C-alpha cells in the first residue's frame, strides 16, 4: 500500500472516533433545570413556589390588566354595566382547568421526597404547597361546586384517575379546610418580607371557610359541614384578631392609595408596585378616565350618620317616593352619611357631556385615587400607577368573623364590639384633611335585632328572608369592602343573585338600573345641551322633565332580569362544565356531570 493511503485512513479514523464516541452527541440542556435534579435545596423550592404569587395575589393587576379590585364591567358591587347573564353553555375552558392543581401537587410531591431538607423546612414547604392547593381548589369549587379532587399528581396514562367523577362540594370543601389547617400549623410565622407566612394562610382560610360555609348552608347542600367550616372561619379570624399584630387604621382610603403599605397596621399582606418594574392602571381609572359608574343601589346602602338606614333615618330625611323612587336628589344624597361613603365615592357628580372624567351613572369611585393625584404626573396616568395593593387586611377578617359568628347564631355584643364596632370607630377625614367626619354610632345587638342610637333598626328595604342582624352585618360588609372584589362572591354564596336584577317585571328600573338623581335645572346653556345629548334619563314623574335619574341601561338589550326558580337564571350560580370535557368523558365511557341548568353536548 502506498504511504499516502495512510493519511486518509488516519484522518478518517480520527473523524470516526470523534463521532462514534458516545458523548459527542450528549448535549444536555445548559440553561434550564431538569426535573428530578432540580429539587436539591430550599432556595430552589422557593424559586418554584414563587410562581404562585402573581397568580393568587393579583392585587391591582399589572399594566393594563386589572386585578379583582373595582372590576368596572363585571357584575360586582351592584354595577350597572351592560353585561348580560351568560347565555351560552361554554364549549371549552370556562375555568375548568387543573394546571395549578398539578403545579401545587408537584410541589407537595417533590418536597416530600427531598432528603436534604430539615423537618422544619420540609413542613414549611409542604404547608406552602398545600396552601396553594387549597387556594386553587377554593377557586375551582367556587366556579363549579363539585369538582374532582386530586391530592397527588395525575398521571395522564392513568385513565381511572384522570377521568374521575366530580367529588361532592362538601368533600372538596373539607379537603380545602384540611390543607389550610395543615398550612396554618406548619407555615412559618415569618418567612421574610412579601412571603407567605402563617397570617397570610389564616387570612385566606378565614375568607375561604366563610365562603363555603355559607354556600353549603344557603344552597341547602350540607348544613353539618357548613357549621364545621364556619367554626374554622371563626377560628382563623380569631387567630389573627387575637395576635395583636394588626389593627384598624383611621385612614380608610389610605389603605388603597398608599405608595407604600409596609407600615400599615391594618394590612396583613400586600402587593408592591414600583415605577418601571411593576405598575398598574387602577389609579388612572379613578383619575381621569370615564368610568362605568356604580348605581344608586350602592349609594343607598350606606347608613346615615345616625347609624340608621336612610329610609329610617331622621338625619337623612328620605323624601316621598314616586313610582318607587325617592326624590332626594344629588348632592343631598351624600350629606350625613357613613364617612366611608365620602372616602369611596367622589363628592360631586360627573356626567358625560359636561365632564371628561365622567361616570355612566354620575357616581364616581375615588377609593383608589391618592389624595395628591393630579393629571400630569405619570404615576397617576396610563398603566404606570404605583400604589401598593392590599391583598389581606384586618377589616375583612373582622367582617368574616362577624358573619361567621352570626351564621352560627353566636353573634352577641361582645362579638360586635370586637368586629363591626372596631370598624365604625375609624376617624375618617374627607380627603384626609380637616376635621374628622362624625363616626357611626356603635352597633348594639340584641338577639336578632340591631339598635343604633337607641333606635331599633327596621330597614324597609330589608330582604325579609334575612334577619335584621344578618342584614346589617351584610350591609357592613358591602360598605367596608366596596370595590374590593367580594360582592359577586358574596351574593353567590348567599344565593342572592336576584339582587342584581336591573328592572322590575313591569319594566321600571330597579336601583341597579339607574344612577344619580339629577336636578336638571342646575345645568344651563351648553353644558345642559351636552348633557341632554349624551346622557339618557329616566323620569320618575313623566310630567316633570326637570328631575331625572341617569339611566345608563336605557337599551332593552342591556338590562338584566331575574326570575326566581327559572333555571335560565338560577344556573348562573355555577359555571357550565365545558362541553368538550363532558364529551371527552362520554367518548371513553366515563361520566362527567353538568351543572344544573346548563346544556349537555349534542349527541
Amino acid at each position, binding site marked *: 500500500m502506498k504511504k499516502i493511503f495512510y493519511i*486518509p485512513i488516519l484522518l*478518517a479514523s480520527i*473523524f470516526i472516533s*470523534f463521532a462514534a464516541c458516545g458523548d*459527542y*452527541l450528549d*448535549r*444536555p*440542556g*445548559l*440553561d*434550564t*433545570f*431538569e*426535573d428530578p435534579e*432540580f429539587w436539591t435545596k430550599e432556595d430552589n423550592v422557593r*424559586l418554584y*413556589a*414563587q*410562581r404562585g404569587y*402573581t397568580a393568587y395575589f393579583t392585587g391591582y393587576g*399589572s*399594566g393594563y390588566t386589572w386585578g379583582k379590585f373595582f372590576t368596572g364591567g363585571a357584575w360586582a358591587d351592584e354595577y350597572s354595566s*351592560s353585561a348580560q347573564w351568560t347565555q351560552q353553555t361554554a364549549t371549552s375552558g370556562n375555568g*375548568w382547568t*387543573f*394546571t395549578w392543581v*398539578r403545579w401545587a*401537587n*408537584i410541589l407537595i410531591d417533590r418536597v416530600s421526597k427531598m432528603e436534604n431538607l430539615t423537618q422544619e423546612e420540609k413542613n414549611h414547604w409542604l404547608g406552602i404547597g398545600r396552601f396553594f392547593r387549597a387556594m386553587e381548589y377554593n377557586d375551582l369549587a367556587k366556579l363549579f361546586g363539585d369538582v374532582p379532587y*386530586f391530592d397527588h399528581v*395525575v398521571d*395522564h396514562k392513568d385513565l381511572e384517575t*384522570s*377521568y374521575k367523577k366530580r367529588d361532592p362540594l362538601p368533600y372538596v370543601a373539607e379537603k380545602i379546610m384540611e390543607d389550610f389547617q395543615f398550612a396554618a400549623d406548619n407555615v412559618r410565622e415569618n418567612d*421574610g*418580607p*412579601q*412571603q407567605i407566612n402563617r397570617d397570610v394562610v389564616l387570612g385566606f382560610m378565614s375568607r375561604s371557610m366563610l365562603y363555603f360555609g355559607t354556600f353549603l348552608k344557603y344552597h341547602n347542600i350540607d348544613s353539618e359541614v357548613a357549621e364545621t367550616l364556619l367554626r374554622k372561619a371563626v377560628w382563623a379570624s380569631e387567630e389573627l384578631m387575637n395576635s395583636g399584630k394588626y389593627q384598624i387604621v383611621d385612614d380608610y382610603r389610605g389603605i388603597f392609595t398608599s405608595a407604600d403599605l409596609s407600615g400599615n397596621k391594618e394590612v396583613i399582606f400586600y402587593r*408592591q408596585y414600583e*415605577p*418601571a*418594574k*411593576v*405598575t398598574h392602571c387602577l389609579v388612572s381609572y379613578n383619575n*381621569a378616565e370615564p368610568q362605568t359608574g356604580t348605581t344608586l343601589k350602592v349609594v343607598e346602602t350606606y347608613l346615615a350618620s345616625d347609624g340608621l338606614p336612610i329610609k329610617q333615618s331622621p338625619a337623612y330625611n328620605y323624601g316621598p317616593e314616586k313610582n318607587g323612587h325617592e326624590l332626594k336628589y344629588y348632592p343631598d344624597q351624600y350629606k350625613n352619611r357613613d364617612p366611608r361613603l365620602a372616602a369611596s365615592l367622589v363628592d360631586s357628580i360627573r356626567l358625560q357631556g359636561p*365632564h*371628561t372624567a365622567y361616570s355612566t351613572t354620575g357616581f364616581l369611585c375615588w377609593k383608589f385615587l391618592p389624595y395628591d393625584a393630579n393629571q*400630569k404626573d*405619570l404615576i397617576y396616568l*396610563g398603566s404606570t400607577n404605583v400604589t401598593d395593593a392590599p391583598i389581606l387586611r384586618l377589616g375583612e377578617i373582622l367582617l368574616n368573623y362577624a358573619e361567621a359568628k352570626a351564621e352560627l347564631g353566636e353573634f352577641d355584643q361582645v362579638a360586635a364590639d370586637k368586629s363591626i364596632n372596631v370598624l365604625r370607630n375609624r376617624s375618617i377625614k374627607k380627603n384626609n384633611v380637616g376635621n374628622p367626619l362624625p363616626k357611626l354610632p356603635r352597633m348594639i345587638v340584641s338577639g336578632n335585632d340591631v339598635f343604633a342610637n337607641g333606635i331599633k333598626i327596621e330597614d324597609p328595604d330589608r330582604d325579609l328572608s334575612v334577619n335584621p342582624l344578618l342584614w346589617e352585618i351584610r350591609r357592613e360588609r358591602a360598605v367596608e369592602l366596596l370595590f374590593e372584589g367580594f360582592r359577586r362572591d358574596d351574593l353567590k354564596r348567599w344565593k342572592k343573585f336576584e339582587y342584581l336584577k336591573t328592572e322590575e317585571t313591569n319594566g321600571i328600573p330597579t336601583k341597579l338600573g339607574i344612577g344619580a338623581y339629577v336636578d336638571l335645572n342646575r345645568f344651563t346653556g351648553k353644558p345642559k345641551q351636552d348633557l341632554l345629548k*349624551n346622557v339618557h334619563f329616566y323620569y320618575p314623574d313623566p310630567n316633570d322633565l326637570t328631575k331625572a335619574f341617569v339611566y345608563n341601561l336605557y*337599551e*332593552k338589550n342591556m338590562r338584566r332580569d331575574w326570575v326566581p326558580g327559572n333555571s335560565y337564571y338560577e344556573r348562573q350560580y355555577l359555571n357550565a362544565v*365545558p362541553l368538550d*370535557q363532558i*364529551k*371527552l*368523558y362520554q367518548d371513553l365511557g366515563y361520566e362527567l356531570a353538568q351543572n344544573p341548568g346548563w346544556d349537555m353536548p*349534542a349527541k
Partner: protein
Amino acid sequence: MKRKINFLLFLFSLSMGITFAQTRVTGKVVDENGEPVIGASILVKGTTIGTVTDIDGNFMLTVPPEGKTLVISYVGMQTQEVPVAPNVRVVMQTVTELLEEVVVVGYGTQRKEHLTGAVSTVDVSRTLENRPITDVGRALQGSTPGLSITTTSGELGGSPRIRVRGEIATIGGGTGNPLILVDNVEVPDLSYVNPDDIASISVLKDASTTAIYGARAAFGAILITTKKGMKEAKPRISYSNNFSWSTPTKVPEHTRADLNLQYSFDQINALRDSPISETGQVGYWYNPEVIKKVKEWIDTYGDGKSLGREMVEGRDFDYRKSGGVYYYRPWDVYDIYYKDWTPQQNQNIRISGGTATTQYNLSAGFMDQKGILKLFDDFYRRYNISGFISSDVKNWITLRGGYMYSKTRQESPFIYASATYDPMYYLYRWHQVYPYGTYKGREFRGAVNDLKSARPVEDDSYFSRYTLGTTLRLTKGLTVDFDYTYSQTFATNHTVGGYVYGINQWSADISRGLTFDNLYGPYTTATYDYARYTSSKNIRNAYNGYITYDTKFADKHSLKVMGGTNIEDAEYIWISARRNGVYDFDKGELNLAGGDQLASSSHSWWSVAGFFGRINYAFMDKYLFELNGRYDGSSKFASGKRWGFFPSFSAAWRVTEEPWMQSAQSILSSLKLRGSWGSVGNQDVPLNAFVSTLTPTTPSSSGNYWLVKGNFVPYISSGPTLVDPDLTWETVTSLDLGLDAGFLNEKLTFTFDWYKRITSDMLAPGETVPATVGASAPRRNFGELETKGVEISATYKHQFDNGLLLTLFGQFTDFKSVVTKYPTPEDPLISSTYYQGKTLGEIWGYKTVGLFQKEDFVWEGDKIKQTILPNGLSKNTHVEGVATQYILESGTFKFSPGDVRFKDLNGDGEINYGTNTVGNPGDLTVIGNNLPRYQYGFQVGVSWKGFDANAFFQGVGKRNIWATGNMVLPGFYGTEANFAHTLDYWTPDNTRAFYPRPLNYDQAAKWNYVCNDRYLLNVAYLRLKSLIIGYSLPNDFLNKVNIERVRVYFNGENLFEFDKMKGVPIDPEMNWTSTTQNDARSFGRSYPYRRTVSFGLQVEF
C-alpha cells in the same frame, strides 16, 4: 408582442432552411456578449482542415465537399459544432456557462444529463447580477421551480422566508427551513453572503438528493458555491457598482381630512339610539362643527405647506372648554414621514486568477441601504470580504483555504412602546388633524416627535468563517477530500431609551386650566429610562471527509462510489445586560447609568454526526442508477433514540440514447425519464424535547412580577414539563417522477416533476387528555402531512443571424398540503389549527350575496318590524325568502340595510355556523386559502451588438388573506383614521357600494366582518420583478485603454404589477408580519414595499 415573436420565428425558420453545399465559408465567432473571440480554432469535422479567427473574430475557410460540419473550439469555452454554410456565426459559451452543465450535488458534482434526482440550478448571472438586491434570498424569488420565497413587508435587512416544495413542511414545531449550505457548510443566515461572490446555486428537492445530508435537509437543500478563481488565468480585476433609488409601491392614503372625520363620526354614532354630539381620543375632539371648519381650512389654505409648521390658535385649533382640543388643520402625514426616493448603493471589487497549479480569488463588497423614514436616518449596511486559495502542492495533494467575513449594521429608531406600535403603526393610526405641527416651536406628543427624539437601536453582526481542506488523489479515479470549517457569528444590539419631551396634549386637563404652554415636559415614563446591550455568539465546527471512486469498465459501465462522514457541533450564547437610570442618554452606556441592573442569558448547544454513502451506476450512459444512504445521529434526541438510517434510491432512463430514438433526434434531442424515492429524517425539533425541564424567568423590564422590597423576584415560569422520553425523528418520505427533454438541438429544454412528500411521525399533540390532568399529554411522533406538487420549467435560447440572442425562461410551481393523520376528535372544530383531512391554509367563512337593501326587510312606517325572540331580545324582520342572520348579532347591532348579506348555503332560511365543526359547519365553507398556489416566473432576455435586456416577471396565481383593520375593513376600529379607497360605503343614496354602512366594530371581526368572501383579499399578482437593460462598450475601443470589459446598465425592480386588490392600496406581497399580527387593527401598517430604479457599471481589467 405576440406579432414580434411570430416575426422572429419566421426569420428563424428561414435561416434553418437555407443549407447549401459550398466550398467557401466565411464566419464570425463571438462570445455570448457579442464580443469577437480571437484565435478560436475552426476545424472541418473528420478532416485536418482548419483555421483560427482573426482579431475581429472573423475567419474564412474552404471546405471540401465531404465536409458537412465545422467544429469550433477555444480554451475556456464550450466546443461547438455547426453545419457548413456560406455564412456562419457562432456564439461560444464561456466555461462558467459550461459549468452549469455540471451540477453541484451533495459532496460532489454531477453532469446534468446524469442526474437522477430532482435538482434545479439557478442561472446565477441572470438572477443575481445587475440587481440592487440586498440578499440572495430575495433575488431568488420566482427564479426556480419548487422554491418559494416570501417576505411580509419591505422592512430593511433580515432574510426572507425560504421554502422548498411546500410552504409548510411540518406542523410538528420544526421550522421547515431548507438546509442552506455555502461550500458544503451551513450558514446561519443567507443575508451574510455577498450575492456577488456566488458562482452557482443548486436546489436539491427530493429525498434522493438530500438524503446525503441526513436529518438536517429533510425539507430540501440549497447548495451555494462561491467563486474560486481559475487555473491558468491571468489576474483579472473586476469592479461593479449599483446605485438605486426606491419609492413605495403602494401607500394607503388617508381620505380627505373632513370626510375622514365624518366617516369616523358616522361609524361611532351608527348604533346609538340618540347620537353623541362629539367624540375624541388622545386629546383631539371633533363634532360636525369641527368637521365643517376642517373643510373650510382646506378650502382656504389648501395643503397649508406655505404656512410652515407652527400652529396658530383660532386658525389651526381651539381649546375645548371641558377638556381637549379641536384641531382644524390637516397634515400630509406621508410627506412628513416618507422620503420620496430612498437611495441604496452596492459596490464590489474582485481579483481572481491562477497559475497552472494554484487558483485564487479575493473580493470585497459594500452595500448601503437607506430607510424610507424622513425623520430618522434608518439604514442597513453590509461589508463583505472573502478569499480563497487552492494549490496543487504535489501532483497527489491539493491544499485549500478560504475565509468569508461579513459585517452588517442596521440602525432603526427606538420605539417608545412595544414593537407592534412602531412608527408605521402610528403613520396610519390617527386622523390627519392630529397635531403634527409645532406650537411655539415645540413638538406635540406623537409618533413624529417620538421618531425625531429616538436614539438609534444599533444592530451589528459579524460573521466569519474559515475553511481548510485538502484533496488527495490516491490513484486514478480515487480521491479523498477533507475539509474543516469553523464559523462564528457575533452579534450585538445596543439600545438606549430615554424620555421624549413635548407638549402632552393628550392630558385630560388641557383647556381646563392648562394650555399647550403648561403641558410641555416629558411624556414618556421611566419604563424607557435604560441602556441595554445584548450580544450573542454562535460557534460552529464542521468536519467533512469523503472518498470518491470514479471508474469506467468494459466501456459500458461507469461507476462512482462515494462514502464519507460529516460531523458538526454548535454552541450558542446570548447575553443581555440592561441598566436603568441613564445619566446622559447621548452616552447610553451601562457604566454611565445608576439604576437597577437587569441581566439574562441563554445558552444552548447541539451536535450531529453522520456517515453517508452514494453509488452511481450508469449503463451505456443510458440507464442511470443512484443509491444514497446516511446513518445519522443527533443530540436532539435521547440516547437510544439518537441514530437513524435514511436510504434513498433513484433511477433514470435516457430514452433518446436508444438507437430506435435516433430518427427523432432532429426534433427531440434529449429525453430523460427520472424517478426517485427516499426517506430522510427531520431533527428540527425543539432542543431537549425529551427532557422534563423547569425554566426560570428573569425579569428584563416591567411586567407582571412579584416584588420584594422593590426588587423583582425570579421564579420558575414553566415546568416541570410533561415529556415523552421516546421522542425521535420525524420522517420525510418523498417520491418524485420527472422528465427532462430537449428539443431542436437543446434550443428548447423542458423539465417536469411531480412529487409526493409525506412527513410522518410528525411531532403532534399527545392524545387528548381531560383537563383534570392539568397538563397536555406530551407531544409524540404521530402526525402525518402529505404534500403533492408539480414543477415545470422551460428554457428557449436562439441566436438569430443578425446576432440577436433571444432567451426565454419560464417556471411554474404548485403544491397542496393536507394533514393526513393528526389527533382529531370525531368532528373537529373548524377553528382547530390542525385536524385530520385539513388542507393547510384553508380559510373558513361565509359566502355573500351583496349588501342588504331596504326591500329585504318588513317595514312598519319608517321602522323595521321587530320580531321578539324567546330570550326576550328582538330582531329585525326580513321579507319572505331572506335568510335571517340573527345569530351573528351582538350588543345593539341588528342586521339592517347596508349590512352584508350572507349566503344561505344549506337553504334552511337561517345563516348560522351549525356546531362550528367540519361535519356541521352551517353556512360556513372554505372560501379561500392563505398559502400561495400557482407560483410562476418568466424571463425574456435579448442581447444584440453589445446591448442586452432582460425582463423578469414573477407571480402568484391564487392566494387569499383574511385581513382586518381599517385599511381593509373600514370602521374596524371606529376611532382611528379611514382610507381613501374605503369611501365607497353604503348609504341610502349609495346602495351599490362595496363597503357596508358605517359602523364601529371595536376591533372585533364581527357582524359584517365575520370572515367572508366579500372582503377576503385576493393577493394573487403578477409583477415585473426586474428589468435590466445593459450596454457593453465595444472591445476595439476598450483594448486601446487596456480594459477588458465595460458594461453600463439600468435596472428597475418591481416596476409594475397586476393584482386583484380591488383598490386596496396594499402591496399584494404584504402580509401580516410578526409585529402586525399582534394587533388585529394593524394589517398594512408595515414598512412599505418599494419600486426601485438603479444604474450601475461593471468593469474588468
